[in-house]
Structures are given as C-alpha cells and as structure tokens.
C-alpha cells in the first residue's frame, strides 16, 4: 500500500462523511438526538461514535495518549459535530502527509499500519451506512456514497458520476 493510495481512501472518507453531515442538517432536533434507533444509538450518536473512533485511532497512530470517549459527552449539534470533523480531517491529513511506504508496512498492534488505517475507513463505511438508513427513512437520503462515484466525480465530473450504477 502506497501513501497516495491511503490518501485517496481518506479523501473518500472525508467526502462521504461530508455528504452524510450535509444531509443530517435537514433533521429535526428530535430526529438528531433520538437514541436506540439502531442498537443503542441514533444518528447523532452514530456520527459522534464514528468521529470518536477516528480520533482515537489517529491519536494512537501518532503515539499520543488515549483520548477520552467523545461518546460520553453531551451530544453536539450537527454544526458543532461538523466543526469537530473538520478538525479531525486536518489532523489525519497531517498524519498521512508524513507517511512513507516503510512506515505503512511497519507493525502497529501486530499488523501492518496500512491495515489499521484501512480498517478505520471500513469502520466509517459501516456507520455511514447506518446513518444513511436513518436519513433515508426520514426523507433526507444522502444519495450515493459509493467509492466509484467519488472516483468518477474526480475523473469525469459530477454529471457523469451521477449516472454510474453501483
């Protein structure tokens, strides 16, 4: 795995999460803060958890002490959560920018670092999917969040990307 490929995946993660956060602006306060919609969480809780996991893994990669659980704090508003995500995107980009192939192949918790980074992307997709279920049921679908759409928006432009199936 090469640094440019990891960067592509995290650019996708940022794009897809941004689509979800944009769609969530349409939700009412009750819809945003409801819990026990999927498992113990509602959409606000799901997106706070996704951010918290992102921050904790990134902090671990950087060798910093474990962060407090963001999930245990009061639920932020949609705007506050986007602001926090913006900070996290800057932080993960700064971390990725100093990676090279040797570092990506180095061991982090018994596996190559690149695998730990890819699992973080996968974790984000899992929870964005849950969030999309709730948003769609509320009439606020975030639209297509596939990687291939992100790829085609970059290579072919928005209009052609929208016609890509699956």
């Amino acid at each position: 795995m090469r640094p440019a490929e990891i960067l592509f995946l995290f650019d996708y993660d940022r794009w897809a999460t941004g689509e979800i956060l944009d769609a969530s602006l349409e939700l009412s306060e009750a819809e945003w803060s409801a819990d026990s919609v999927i498992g113990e969480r509602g959409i606000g809780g799901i997106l706070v958890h996704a951010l918290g996991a992102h921050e904790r893994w990134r902090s671990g990669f950087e060798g910093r002490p474990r962060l407090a659980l963001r999930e245990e704090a009061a639920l932020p508003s949609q705007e506050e959560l986007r602001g926090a995500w913006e900070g996290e995107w800057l932080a993960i980009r700064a971390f990725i920018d100093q990676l090279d192939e040797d570092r990506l192949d180095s061991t982090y918790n018994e596996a190559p670092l690149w695998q730990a980074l890819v699992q973080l992307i996968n974790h984000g997709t899992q929870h964005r999917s849950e969030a999309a279920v709730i948003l769609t049921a509320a009439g606020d679908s975030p639209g297509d969040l596939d990687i291939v759409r992100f790829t085609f928006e970059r290579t072919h432009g928005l209009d052609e990307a929208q016609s890509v199936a699956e």
Partner: protein
Amino acid sequence: MNLSDLGFLFGYERWATERVLVACTGIDEATWSSPNAIGERGLGGILVHTLGAHQRWRHGLAHGSESPRPEREPLPSVAELTAAWAAELDAMDGWLAGLDEATPLSVEDEAPFWQYLAHLANHGTQHRSEAAVLLTAAGHSPGDLDMIDYIEERAVAGHR
C-alpha cells in the same frame, strides 16, 4: 495497492459476508423476503444485490461484460444464496490469483484498476451494515463485523 493488499481486502470480504450469511440461518421467512425494509429492499434483497454487484464487477473487470442480474430472479433461500456466494467468493479469489502485479496499478476508464476493487469491497461493507441492522432487529445479530476483528484473528493465526 498490490495483489497482496487486494487479497487482504477480499479475505475480509469473505470473512464478514460468511458471518452475515450464518446469522441469516433460521431467520423467519417474513424478515428474509419482505421488501421495503431499507429503501426498496429487505434482508434477502440486500444480500442478493450485494452478490449481483460482486458478480457484475468481477465479470466487468475480467471480461468486459456485466451480465449477472440475480436481483431479477426469484428470491433464493438462505441456503441457496449461501451457495451462490461461496461460488462467487471462490471465483473472485481465483481471478485475483491469476492477475499479474502490474494490473492493480493499470488504468481503466481514467482511474486505477485497484480503485474499482476497493469500491467493490467498500460496497460490500455498506450493504452488510444494512443487513446487520435488520438481522439485529430480528434477534439474529451477526456479531462484530469490524475489520479490526478480522485483523486480530489473522494475527492470532500467525498471518500479517
């Protein structure tokens, strides 16, 4: 992304998909076959679509064709779908094993080949998450499907 990296992604795909299919065993017929649970699809429809997309992308990338449309066929049983998935996962492994190292970095329709495969793996995660929501609501949770659990199982088995 090289062939070994792609092998890791699709190893996870197999591991997680098999967990979801095992959790479907014994599910009630209504949960399995009802549409409109998430968007237009129900549990069975979601997993058939995920299989169809897998088949079409593999066919498209390997042969330039995208013919399989299992979504248009009658809904299979859990056992039938599990068998179809096993055949597809084996076909994927066989196809990946036959690629040369230059293929993932080659360019297909202005994008690196590996990005289409990363899309396919990500598409599977997206729909397994939907399936897990329905399975959990029906009392058939597939358990934790995080990639980190797959990584830890591999580490215990001595893989890296």
